[in-house]
Protein backbone atom coordinates (compact mmCIF):
# COMPACT_ATOMS: atom_id res chain seq x y z
CA UNK A 1 0.00 0.00 0.00
CA UNK A 2 1.32 3.39 -0.99
CA UNK A 3 0.75 6.25 1.42
CA UNK A 4 0.98 9.69 -0.09
CA UNK A 5 3.16 11.98 1.99
CA UNK A 6 0.36 14.42 2.75
CA UNK A 7 -1.78 11.66 4.24
CA UNK A 8 -1.39 9.88 7.54
CA UNK A 9 -2.86 6.65 8.76
CA UNK A 10 -5.83 7.82 10.82
CA UNK A 11 -6.16 6.69 14.40
CA UNK A 12 -8.85 4.35 15.70
CA UNK A 13 -10.13 5.72 19.00
CA UNK A 14 -11.88 3.76 21.74
CA UNK A 15 -13.16 5.02 25.10
CA UNK A 16 -14.24 2.41 27.66
CA UNK A 17 -16.40 3.45 30.59
CA UNK A 18 -14.61 6.76 31.06
CA UNK A 19 -15.66 8.80 34.09
CA UNK A 20 -14.04 11.96 35.39
CA UNK A 21 -14.55 14.40 38.26
CA UNK A 22 -13.04 17.61 39.55
CA UNK A 23 -12.27 18.49 43.12
CA UNK A 24 -13.68 21.83 44.02
CA UNK A 25 -13.44 23.14 47.61
CA UNK A 26 -13.38 19.62 49.01
CA UNK A 27 -16.47 18.61 47.03
CA UNK A 28 -16.22 16.18 44.14
CA UNK A 29 -17.94 17.44 41.00
CA UNK A 30 -18.56 14.67 38.46
CA UNK A 31 -18.10 15.93 34.89
CA UNK A 32 -18.10 12.78 32.77
CA UNK A 33 -20.26 9.80 33.59
CA UNK A 34 -19.44 6.40 32.11
CA UNK A 35 -18.80 7.36 28.50
CA UNK A 36 -18.00 4.59 26.05
CA UNK A 37 -17.32 5.66 22.50
CA UNK A 38 -15.57 4.52 19.37
CA UNK A 39 -14.36 6.42 16.37
CA UNK A 40 -13.28 4.49 13.28
CA UNK A 41 -10.16 5.64 11.43
CA UNK A 42 -10.97 8.64 9.27
CA UNK A 43 -14.32 9.35 10.84
CA UNK A 44 -15.44 12.91 11.65
CA UNK A 45 -17.36 12.74 14.89
CA UNK A 46 -19.12 15.77 16.34
CA UNK A 47 -19.61 15.86 20.10
CA UNK A 48 -22.72 17.90 20.67
CA UNK A 49 -24.09 19.03 23.99
CA UNK A 50 -25.03 21.99 26.14
CA UNK A 51 -22.31 24.42 27.21
CA UNK A 52 -20.26 23.31 30.18
CA UNK A 53 -21.38 19.69 30.01
CA UNK A 54 -17.88 18.25 30.03
CA UNK A 55 -17.23 17.72 26.32
CA UNK A 56 -14.06 19.80 26.45
CA UNK A 57 -12.83 17.79 29.41
CA UNK A 58 -13.41 14.65 27.37
CA UNK A 59 -11.15 16.04 24.64
CA UNK A 60 -8.46 16.88 27.22
CA UNK A 61 -8.60 13.27 28.44
CA UNK A 62 -8.27 11.93 24.89
CA UNK A 63 -5.38 14.33 24.21
CA UNK A 64 -3.72 12.94 27.33
CA UNK A 65 -3.51 16.34 29.06
CA UNK A 66 -5.32 14.79 32.02
CA UNK A 67 -5.88 11.19 33.09
CA UNK A 68 -9.46 9.95 33.59
CA UNK A 69 -10.50 9.00 37.11
CA UNK A 70 -12.06 5.79 35.79
CA UNK A 71 -12.09 3.87 32.55
CA UNK A 72 -9.56 3.73 29.76
CA UNK A 73 -8.83 5.39 26.44
CA UNK A 74 -7.19 3.53 23.56
CA UNK A 75 -5.66 4.79 20.37
CA UNK A 76 -5.19 1.89 17.95
CA UNK A 77 -5.63 -0.52 20.91
CA UNK A 78 -2.75 0.95 22.93
CA UNK A 79 -3.75 2.87 26.06
CA UNK A 80 -3.35 6.66 26.13
CA UNK A 81 -1.00 7.57 28.98
CA UNK A 82 -0.07 11.14 28.07
CA UNK A 83 0.01 13.73 25.32
CA UNK A 84 1.59 12.88 21.99
CA UNK A 85 1.97 14.57 18.63
CA UNK A 86 -0.28 12.00 16.95
CA UNK A 87 -3.26 13.39 18.89
CA UNK A 88 -3.34 17.17 18.54
CA UNK A 89 -5.91 19.35 20.21
CA UNK A 90 -7.04 22.66 18.78
CA UNK A 91 -8.59 25.03 21.29
CA UNK A 92 -11.38 27.58 21.15
CA UNK A 93 -8.77 30.36 21.36
CA UNK A 94 -5.92 30.23 18.88
CA UNK A 95 -3.44 30.68 21.79
CA UNK A 96 -0.62 31.57 19.44
CA UNK A 97 2.62 32.49 21.20
CA UNK A 98 2.91 36.27 20.81
CA UNK A 99 6.72 36.08 20.87
CA UNK A 100 6.85 33.84 17.80
CA UNK A 101 6.06 34.96 14.30
CA UNK A 102 3.38 33.08 12.37
CA UNK A 103 5.96 30.70 10.94
CA UNK A 104 7.51 30.10 14.36
CA UNK A 105 4.11 29.27 15.78
CA UNK A 106 3.40 26.77 13.05
CA UNK A 107 6.82 25.18 13.60
CA UNK A 108 6.14 24.73 17.33
CA UNK A 109 5.56 20.99 17.12
CA UNK A 110 8.81 20.53 15.22
CA UNK A 111 10.73 22.53 17.81
CA UNK A 112 9.27 20.41 20.58
CA UNK A 113 10.07 17.14 18.90
CA UNK A 114 13.48 18.20 17.64
CA UNK A 115 12.58 18.04 13.97
CA UNK A 116 13.46 20.67 11.43
CA UNK A 117 11.24 20.40 8.40
CA UNK A 118 10.84 23.78 6.73
CA UNK A 119 8.99 22.23 3.82
CA UNK A 120 6.30 20.79 6.08
CA UNK A 121 5.84 24.20 7.74
CA UNK A 122 5.59 25.88 4.35
CA UNK A 123 3.11 23.24 3.19
CA UNK A 124 0.95 23.74 6.28
CA UNK A 125 1.00 27.52 5.81
CA UNK A 126 0.01 27.05 2.17
CA UNK A 127 -2.78 24.71 3.19
CA UNK A 128 -4.43 27.47 5.25
CA UNK A 129 -3.46 30.11 2.68
CA UNK A 130 -1.28 32.15 5.03
CA UNK A 131 2.15 31.81 3.46
CA UNK A 132 2.16 35.56 2.78
CA UNK A 133 1.84 36.18 6.50
CA UNK A 134 4.61 33.90 7.72
CA UNK A 135 6.64 36.87 9.00
CA UNK A 136 3.69 38.54 10.77
CA UNK A 137 3.34 38.69 14.53
CA UNK A 138 0.19 37.15 16.04
CA UNK A 139 -1.13 40.53 17.23
CA UNK A 140 -1.27 41.63 13.60
CA UNK A 141 -3.73 38.88 12.63
CA UNK A 142 -7.52 38.89 12.64
CA UNK A 143 -9.38 36.29 14.70
CA UNK A 144 -10.04 34.06 11.70
CA UNK A 145 -6.44 34.27 10.50
CA UNK A 146 -5.14 33.45 13.97
CA UNK A 147 -7.37 30.38 14.11
CA UNK A 148 -6.10 29.30 10.69
CA UNK A 149 -2.54 29.60 12.00
CA UNK A 150 -3.61 27.41 14.92
CA UNK A 151 -4.99 24.90 12.43
CA UNK A 152 -1.70 24.91 10.50
CA UNK A 153 0.22 24.52 13.78
CA UNK A 154 -1.87 21.41 14.52
CA UNK A 155 -1.58 19.98 11.00
CA UNK A 156 2.19 20.33 10.75
CA UNK A 157 2.44 17.48 13.27
CA UNK A 158 0.57 15.19 10.85
CA UNK A 159 -1.90 14.28 13.58
CA UNK A 160 -3.61 10.94 13.24
CA UNK A 161 -6.41 12.29 15.41
CA UNK A 162 -7.39 15.95 15.44
CA UNK A 163 -9.33 17.09 18.48
CA UNK A 164 -11.25 20.29 17.81
CA UNK A 165 -12.48 22.01 20.96
CA UNK A 166 -15.04 24.45 19.58
CA UNK A 167 -12.37 26.04 17.40
CA UNK A 168 -14.91 28.22 15.63
CA UNK A 169 -16.82 29.24 18.74
CA UNK A 170 -15.49 32.77 18.94
CA UNK A 171 -15.41 33.66 15.27
CA UNK A 172 -17.93 35.94 13.59
CA UNK A 173 -20.53 34.08 11.55
CA UNK A 174 -19.02 34.75 8.11
CA UNK A 175 -15.51 33.75 9.13
CA UNK A 176 -17.08 30.74 10.74
CA UNK A 177 -18.60 29.59 7.44
CA UNK A 178 -15.23 29.95 5.71
CA UNK A 179 -13.47 28.02 8.46
CA UNK A 180 -16.03 25.20 8.34
CA UNK A 181 -15.27 24.70 4.66
CA UNK A 182 -11.56 24.97 5.43
CA UNK A 183 -11.65 22.29 8.11
CA UNK A 184 -13.72 20.00 5.90
CA UNK A 185 -11.29 20.46 3.00
CA UNK A 186 -8.25 19.75 5.19
CA UNK A 187 -9.90 16.70 6.71
CA UNK A 188 -10.68 15.28 3.25
CA UNK A 189 -7.14 15.98 2.09
CA UNK A 190 -5.24 14.68 5.11
CA UNK A 191 -7.72 11.96 6.13
CA UNK A 192 -7.12 12.02 9.87
CA UNK A 193 -9.75 11.02 12.39
CA UNK A 194 -11.50 14.11 13.71
CA UNK A 195 -13.41 14.74 16.91
CA UNK A 196 -15.07 18.11 17.18
CA UNK A 197 -16.78 19.57 20.20
CA UNK A 198 -19.52 22.02 19.32
CA UNK A 199 -22.85 23.25 20.55
CA UNK A 200 -23.94 24.32 17.10
CA UNK A 201 -26.23 21.63 15.68
CA UNK A 202 -26.02 22.96 12.15
CA UNK A 203 -22.23 23.00 12.23
CA UNK A 204 -22.20 19.38 13.42
CA UNK A 205 -24.57 18.36 10.63
CA UNK A 206 -22.53 20.16 7.98
CA UNK A 207 -19.20 18.65 8.96
CA UNK A 208 -19.56 15.35 10.77
CA UNK A 209 -20.09 11.82 9.61
CA UNK A 210 -21.52 11.03 13.03
CA UNK A 211 -22.98 13.06 15.86
CA UNK A 212 -22.80 12.04 19.50
CA UNK A 213 -25.23 13.94 21.70
CA UNK A 214 -24.34 14.51 25.37
CA UNK A 215 -26.48 15.31 28.40
CA UNK A 216 -25.86 18.30 30.67
CA UNK A 217 -23.12 17.77 33.26
CA UNK A 218 -22.07 15.12 34.14
CA UNK A 219 -21.79 14.26 30.45
CA UNK A 220 -23.51 11.03 29.41
CA UNK A 221 -24.16 9.90 25.86
CA UNK A 222 -27.80 10.50 24.95
CA UNK A 223 -27.70 9.57 21.31
CA UNK A 224 -25.29 8.44 18.63
CA UNK A 225 -26.54 9.54 15.24
CA UNK A 226 -24.87 8.65 11.93
CA UNK A 227 -25.19 11.49 9.43
CA UNK A 228 -25.95 9.85 6.11
CA UNK A 229 -25.91 12.99 4.03
CA UNK A 230 -24.06 13.52 0.74
CA UNK A 231 -20.50 14.82 0.86
CA UNK A 232 -21.47 18.22 -0.47
CA UNK A 233 -24.02 19.39 2.04
CA UNK A 234 -26.29 22.33 2.02
CA UNK A 235 -27.75 23.91 5.10
CA UNK A 236 -31.20 24.04 3.47
CA UNK A 237 -31.27 20.32 2.61
CA UNK A 238 -34.65 19.07 4.02
CA UNK A 239 -32.97 15.90 5.27
CA UNK A 240 -30.47 18.01 7.22
CA UNK A 241 -33.27 20.11 8.62
CA UNK A 242 -35.21 17.10 9.84
CA UNK A 243 -32.07 15.68 11.50
CA UNK A 244 -31.53 19.08 13.08
CA UNK A 245 -35.05 18.95 14.51
CA UNK A 246 -34.47 15.47 15.94
CA UNK A 247 -31.21 16.45 17.59
CA UNK A 248 -32.60 19.64 19.05
CA UNK A 249 -35.38 17.52 20.51
CA UNK A 250 -32.76 15.24 22.06
CA UNK A 251 -31.20 18.33 23.64
CA UNK A 252 -34.56 19.33 25.09
CA UNK A 253 -35.61 21.95 22.54
CA UNK A 254 -38.84 20.45 21.29
CA UNK A 255 -40.26 23.79 20.24
CA UNK A 256 -38.52 24.15 16.94
CA UNK A 257 -38.15 27.74 15.81
Amino acid at each position, binding site marked *: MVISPSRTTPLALRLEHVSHAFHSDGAIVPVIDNVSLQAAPGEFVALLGPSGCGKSTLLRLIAGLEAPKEGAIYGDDSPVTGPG*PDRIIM*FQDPTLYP*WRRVRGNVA*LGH*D*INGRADDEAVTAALKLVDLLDFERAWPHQLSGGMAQRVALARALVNDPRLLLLDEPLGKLDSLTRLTMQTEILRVWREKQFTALMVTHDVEEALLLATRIVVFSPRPARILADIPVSLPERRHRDDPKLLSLRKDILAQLGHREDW
Partner: protein
Amino acid sequence: MSQRLASSVRFAPSPNVTTVRRAFPLAQTLPWLAGPVWLVAALVTWRAPDADDFPATNDLAVLFAALGVVLLVAAAGRRLSARAPWAIALGVGFGLWEVAQAKLLWLPRPFFGTPQDLLDVFQSDWRKLGDSLLHSLALLAIGYLGGATLGIAVGAGLGRSPRFRYWVRPIMRLIGPLPPVALLPLAFVLIPSSRVAGDALMALAAGFPVAVLTWSGIAAVDPAYYDVARTMGAKQRFLLFHVALPAATPQIFVGLFMGLGASFSMLVVAEMLGVKSGLGFYLQWAQGWAAYPNMYAALLVMSLMCSALMTVLFKLRDHLLNWQKDGLKW
Protein backbone atom coordinates in the same frame (compact mmCIF):
# COMPACT_ATOMS: atom_id res chain seq x y z
CA MET B 1 -6.67 49.46 9.52
CA SER B 2 -4.03 52.02 10.34
CA GLN B 3 -3.25 52.31 6.65
CA ARG B 4 -6.83 53.15 5.90
CA LEU B 5 -6.74 55.70 8.70
CA ALA B 6 -3.58 57.26 7.39
CA SER B 7 -4.95 57.64 3.87
CA SER B 8 -8.15 59.24 5.09
CA VAL B 9 -6.09 61.70 7.10
CA ARG B 10 -3.99 62.50 4.09
CA PHE B 11 -7.02 63.36 1.98
CA ALA B 12 -8.81 65.36 4.64
CA PRO B 13 -8.08 69.10 4.51
CA SER B 14 -5.92 69.34 7.58
CA PRO B 15 -5.33 72.59 9.47
CA ASN B 16 -1.98 71.15 10.59
CA VAL B 17 -0.51 71.55 7.14
CA THR B 18 -0.65 75.35 7.24
CA THR B 19 0.77 75.46 10.78
CA VAL B 20 3.68 73.29 9.73
CA ARG B 21 4.38 75.54 6.73
CA ARG B 22 4.38 78.68 8.82
CA ALA B 23 6.77 77.08 11.32
CA PHE B 24 9.05 75.87 8.59
CA PRO B 25 11.40 78.90 8.41
CA LEU B 26 12.02 78.63 12.17
CA ALA B 27 12.72 74.91 11.86
CA GLN B 28 15.15 75.76 9.10
CA THR B 29 16.98 78.57 10.93
CA LEU B 30 17.19 76.92 14.35
CA PRO B 31 20.02 74.50 13.46
CA TRP B 32 22.08 77.44 12.13
CA LEU B 33 21.72 79.17 15.50
CA ALA B 34 23.38 76.45 17.59
CA GLY B 35 26.92 76.93 16.26
CA PRO B 36 26.98 80.74 16.67
CA VAL B 37 25.66 80.44 20.24
CA TRP B 38 28.66 78.25 21.16
CA LEU B 39 31.04 80.52 19.26
CA VAL B 40 29.76 83.53 21.22
CA ALA B 41 30.24 81.55 24.45
CA ALA B 42 33.80 80.78 23.30
CA LEU B 43 34.48 84.45 22.55
CA VAL B 44 33.19 85.59 25.94
CA THR B 45 35.23 82.90 27.69
CA TRP B 46 38.36 83.94 25.84
CA ARG B 47 38.08 87.74 25.90
CA ALA B 48 36.27 88.64 29.14
CA PRO B 49 38.62 88.81 32.14
CA ASP B 50 38.35 86.06 34.75
CA ALA B 51 37.28 87.09 38.27
CA ASP B 52 39.94 84.89 39.79
CA ASP B 53 42.94 82.85 38.71
CA PHE B 54 41.17 79.95 37.01
CA PRO B 55 42.97 77.16 35.18
CA ALA B 56 42.18 76.13 31.64
CA THR B 57 40.16 79.17 30.61
CA ASN B 58 41.70 79.25 27.16
CA ASP B 59 41.27 75.49 26.75
CA LEU B 60 37.61 75.92 27.57
CA ALA B 61 37.28 78.66 24.95
CA VAL B 62 38.87 76.34 22.39
CA LEU B 63 36.49 73.54 23.40
CA PHE B 64 33.43 75.83 23.05
CA ALA B 65 34.68 77.09 19.70
CA ALA B 66 35.31 73.56 18.47
CA LEU B 67 31.78 72.57 19.47
CA GLY B 68 30.47 75.62 17.64
CA VAL B 69 32.26 74.58 14.46
CA VAL B 70 31.05 70.99 14.77
CA LEU B 71 27.48 72.24 15.16
CA LEU B 72 27.81 74.48 12.12
CA VAL B 73 29.05 71.55 10.07
CA ALA B 74 26.15 69.45 11.37
CA ALA B 75 23.71 72.20 10.43
CA ALA B 76 25.20 72.37 6.94
CA GLY B 77 24.80 68.59 6.67
CA ARG B 78 21.17 68.90 7.86
CA ARG B 79 21.83 66.50 10.74
CA LEU B 80 20.82 68.79 13.57
CA SER B 81 17.10 69.47 13.06
CA ALA B 82 15.62 67.60 16.07
CA ARG B 83 18.53 68.27 18.43
CA ALA B 84 18.93 71.96 17.55
CA PRO B 85 16.89 73.33 20.51
CA TRP B 86 18.97 71.27 22.94
CA ALA B 87 22.25 72.32 21.33
CA ILE B 88 21.23 75.97 21.62
CA ALA B 89 19.98 75.63 25.21
CA LEU B 90 23.20 73.93 26.29
CA GLY B 91 25.30 76.62 24.63
CA VAL B 92 23.31 79.36 26.34
CA GLY B 93 23.48 77.45 29.65
CA PHE B 94 27.24 76.94 29.57
CA GLY B 95 27.75 80.53 28.45
CA LEU B 96 25.66 81.88 31.32
CA TRP B 97 27.42 79.59 33.80
CA GLU B 98 30.77 80.84 32.53
CA VAL B 99 29.74 84.48 32.87
CA ALA B 100 28.03 84.09 36.24
CA GLN B 101 30.79 82.13 37.93
CA ALA B 102 34.10 82.60 36.11
CA LYS B 103 33.65 86.25 35.15
CA LEU B 104 31.39 87.64 37.89
CA LEU B 105 31.82 85.06 40.69
CA TRP B 106 28.24 85.25 41.91
CA LEU B 107 28.25 81.99 43.92
CA PRO B 108 30.60 81.09 46.78
CA ARG B 109 33.68 79.07 45.95
CA PRO B 110 34.74 76.30 46.27
CA PHE B 111 31.30 74.66 46.53
CA PHE B 112 30.30 76.02 43.15
CA GLY B 113 32.90 75.62 40.44
CA THR B 114 33.34 77.11 37.01
CA PRO B 115 33.18 75.25 33.70
CA GLN B 116 36.96 75.51 33.42
CA ASP B 117 37.35 73.92 36.89
CA LEU B 118 35.46 70.92 35.56
CA LEU B 119 37.51 70.85 32.37
CA ASP B 120 40.67 71.10 34.42
CA VAL B 121 39.68 68.02 36.44
CA PHE B 122 39.13 66.00 33.27
CA GLN B 123 42.47 67.28 31.89
CA SER B 124 44.54 66.63 34.97
CA ASP B 125 42.81 63.66 36.58
CA TRP B 126 41.35 61.73 33.64
CA ARG B 127 43.56 58.74 34.37
CA LYS B 128 42.21 58.33 37.86
CA LEU B 129 38.63 59.04 36.79
CA GLY B 130 38.88 56.51 33.99
CA ASP B 131 40.40 53.97 36.32
CA SER B 132 37.57 54.55 38.81
CA LEU B 133 35.03 54.14 36.05
CA LEU B 134 36.55 50.83 34.99
CA HIS B 135 36.60 49.57 38.56
CA SER B 136 32.98 50.55 39.07
CA LEU B 137 31.97 48.92 35.81
CA ALA B 138 33.78 45.71 36.72
CA LEU B 139 32.18 45.58 40.15
CA LEU B 140 28.78 46.33 38.66
CA ALA B 141 29.10 43.82 35.85
CA ILE B 142 29.83 40.91 38.15
CA GLY B 143 27.32 41.90 40.82
CA TYR B 144 24.49 42.85 38.51
CA LEU B 145 24.88 40.08 35.95
CA GLY B 146 25.31 37.50 38.70
CA GLY B 147 22.30 38.82 40.56
CA ALA B 148 20.14 39.01 37.43
CA THR B 149 21.01 35.45 36.41
CA LEU B 150 20.40 34.16 39.91
CA GLY B 151 17.18 36.16 40.12
CA ILE B 152 15.80 34.69 36.90
CA ALA B 153 16.74 31.18 38.07
CA VAL B 154 15.13 31.65 41.49
CA GLY B 155 12.06 33.28 39.93
CA ALA B 156 11.73 30.39 37.47
CA GLY B 157 12.01 27.92 40.35
CA LEU B 158 9.37 29.82 42.34
CA GLY B 159 7.10 29.97 39.32
CA ARG B 160 7.38 26.37 38.20
CA SER B 161 8.24 24.14 41.15
CA PRO B 162 5.91 23.85 44.16
CA ARG B 163 8.64 22.23 46.27
CA PHE B 164 11.14 24.98 45.48
CA ARG B 165 8.44 27.52 46.29
CA TYR B 166 7.74 25.84 49.62
CA TRP B 167 11.32 26.18 50.81
CA VAL B 168 12.46 29.40 49.17
CA ARG B 169 9.42 31.65 49.47
CA PRO B 170 9.68 32.17 53.27
CA ILE B 171 13.39 33.02 52.92
CA MET B 172 12.59 35.47 50.14
CA ARG B 173 9.89 37.09 52.22
CA LEU B 174 12.28 37.54 55.14
CA ILE B 175 15.40 38.76 53.36
CA GLY B 176 13.98 40.34 50.21
CA PRO B 177 12.40 43.50 51.62
CA LEU B 178 15.49 44.26 53.75
CA PRO B 179 17.52 47.03 52.06
CA PRO B 180 20.76 45.29 51.06
CA VAL B 181 22.67 48.34 52.30
CA ALA B 182 21.76 47.24 55.83
CA LEU B 183 23.77 44.05 55.28
CA LEU B 184 26.89 45.97 54.26
CA PRO B 185 28.59 46.08 57.70
CA LEU B 186 27.90 42.39 58.19
CA ALA B 187 29.13 41.54 54.69
CA PHE B 188 32.42 43.41 55.21
CA VAL B 189 32.96 41.43 58.41
CA LEU B 190 32.00 38.03 57.02
CA ILE B 191 33.63 38.33 53.59
CA PRO B 192 37.33 39.22 53.76
CA SER B 193 37.46 40.80 50.31
CA SER B 194 35.50 44.05 50.22
CA ARG B 195 35.08 43.70 46.45
CA VAL B 196 33.51 40.27 46.82
CA ALA B 197 31.31 41.58 49.62
CA GLY B 198 30.22 44.47 47.40
CA ASP B 199 29.47 42.10 44.54
CA ALA B 200 27.49 39.78 46.76
CA LEU B 201 25.32 42.61 48.03
CA MET B 202 24.88 44.04 44.57
CA ALA B 203 23.77 40.62 43.37
CA LEU B 204 21.29 40.54 46.22
CA ALA B 205 20.05 44.05 45.44
CA ALA B 206 19.57 43.23 41.76
CA GLY B 207 18.46 39.65 42.26
CA PHE B 208 15.48 40.26 44.52
CA PRO B 209 13.35 42.37 42.16
CA VAL B 210 14.35 40.17 39.23
CA ALA B 211 13.32 37.02 41.11
CA VAL B 212 9.98 38.46 42.25
CA LEU B 213 9.06 39.78 38.82
CA THR B 214 10.19 36.62 37.02
CA TRP B 215 8.04 34.65 39.44
CA SER B 216 5.00 36.87 38.98
CA GLY B 217 5.52 36.86 35.22
CA ILE B 218 5.57 33.07 35.12
CA ALA B 219 2.62 32.83 37.48
CA ALA B 220 0.61 35.01 35.09
CA VAL B 221 1.30 32.85 32.01
CA ASP B 222 -1.93 31.68 30.41
CA PRO B 223 -2.18 27.94 31.25
CA ALA B 224 -3.43 27.38 27.70
CA TYR B 225 0.09 28.19 26.46
CA TYR B 226 1.32 25.12 28.34
CA ASP B 227 -1.55 22.97 27.03
CA VAL B 228 -0.72 23.90 23.44
CA ALA B 229 2.87 22.76 23.86
CA ARG B 230 1.98 19.73 25.97
CA THR B 231 -0.48 18.39 23.42
CA MET B 232 2.46 18.21 21.02
CA GLY B 233 4.52 16.31 23.56
CA ALA B 234 6.51 19.10 25.24
CA LYS B 235 8.34 18.18 28.46
CA GLN B 236 9.12 20.38 31.48
CA ARG B 237 12.34 21.69 29.99
CA PHE B 238 10.63 22.98 26.87
CA LEU B 239 7.77 24.42 28.92
CA LEU B 240 10.25 26.38 31.05
CA PHE B 241 12.64 27.66 28.42
CA HIS B 242 10.32 28.03 25.45
CA VAL B 243 6.99 28.87 27.04
CA ALA B 244 7.24 30.17 30.62
CA LEU B 245 10.34 32.36 30.30
CA PRO B 246 9.51 33.94 26.91
CA ALA B 247 5.97 34.64 28.09
CA ALA B 248 7.34 36.23 31.27
CA THR B 249 10.00 38.30 29.49
CA PRO B 250 8.15 41.64 29.67
CA GLN B 251 7.85 41.23 33.45
CA ILE B 252 11.43 39.99 33.76
CA PHE B 253 12.60 43.21 32.13
CA VAL B 254 10.66 45.28 34.66
CA GLY B 255 12.63 43.39 37.32
CA LEU B 256 15.89 43.90 35.44
CA PHE B 257 15.33 47.68 35.32
CA MET B 258 14.47 47.81 39.02
CA GLY B 259 17.46 45.63 39.80
CA LEU B 260 19.79 47.84 37.78
CA GLY B 261 18.66 50.89 39.74
CA ALA B 262 19.10 49.02 43.01
CA SER B 263 22.58 47.85 42.07
CA PHE B 264 23.61 51.43 41.18
CA SER B 265 22.74 52.49 44.73
CA MET B 266 24.48 49.48 46.17
CA LEU B 267 27.56 50.14 44.04
CA VAL B 268 27.97 53.71 45.26
CA VAL B 269 27.38 52.83 48.90
CA ALA B 270 29.75 49.87 48.78
CA GLU B 271 32.46 51.99 47.17
CA MET B 272 31.96 54.79 49.64
CA LEU B 273 32.09 52.55 52.67
CA GLY B 274 34.51 49.76 51.99
CA VAL B 275 35.68 49.11 48.47
CA LYS B 276 38.88 51.11 47.92
CA SER B 277 38.30 51.96 44.25
CA GLY B 278 35.63 53.07 41.85
CA LEU B 279 33.62 56.24 41.31
CA GLY B 280 31.97 56.06 44.74
CA PHE B 281 35.39 55.90 46.33
CA TYR B 282 36.59 58.80 44.17
CA LEU B 283 33.54 60.80 45.24
CA GLN B 284 34.25 60.13 48.91
CA TRP B 285 37.92 60.95 48.44
CA ALA B 286 37.10 64.22 46.65
CA GLN B 287 34.78 65.25 49.42
CA GLY B 288 37.48 64.47 52.00
CA TRP B 289 39.86 66.86 50.23
CA ALA B 290 37.15 69.42 49.58
CA ALA B 291 37.95 68.96 45.88
CA TYR B 292 34.49 69.96 44.71
CA PRO B 293 35.26 70.18 40.99
CA ASN B 294 36.49 66.59 41.20
CA MET B 295 33.21 65.65 42.85
CA TYR B 296 31.20 67.25 40.06
CA ALA B 297 33.34 65.51 37.50
CA ALA B 298 32.85 62.13 39.21
CA LEU B 299 29.11 62.73 39.43
CA LEU B 300 29.00 63.56 35.74
CA VAL B 301 30.93 60.41 34.83
CA MET B 302 28.72 58.37 37.14
CA SER B 303 25.49 59.65 35.66
CA LEU B 304 26.80 59.09 32.14
CA MET B 305 27.71 55.53 33.12
CA CYS B 306 24.31 54.79 34.68
CA SER B 307 22.47 56.36 31.77
CA ALA B 308 24.53 54.42 29.25
CA LEU B 309 23.86 51.13 31.04
CA MET B 310 20.13 51.89 31.19
CA THR B 311 20.24 52.60 27.46
CA VAL B 312 21.96 49.27 26.83
CA LEU B 313 19.24 47.49 28.82
CA PHE B 314 16.51 49.32 26.92
CA LYS B 315 18.11 48.38 23.62
CA LEU B 316 18.28 44.76 24.73
CA ARG B 317 14.63 44.87 25.76
CA ASP B 318 13.54 46.45 22.48
CA HIS B 319 15.45 43.74 20.66
CA LEU B 320 14.04 40.82 22.65
CA LEU B 321 10.52 42.20 22.92
CA ASN B 322 10.19 43.32 19.31
CA TRP B 323 7.04 41.19 19.21
CA GLN B 324 5.23 43.55 21.56
CA LYS B 325 2.92 46.10 20.06
CA ASP B 326 4.48 49.06 21.81
CA GLY B 327 6.73 49.85 24.70
CA LEU B 328 8.15 52.81 26.58
CA LYS B 329 10.88 54.61 24.68
CA TRP B 330 13.90 55.60 26.79
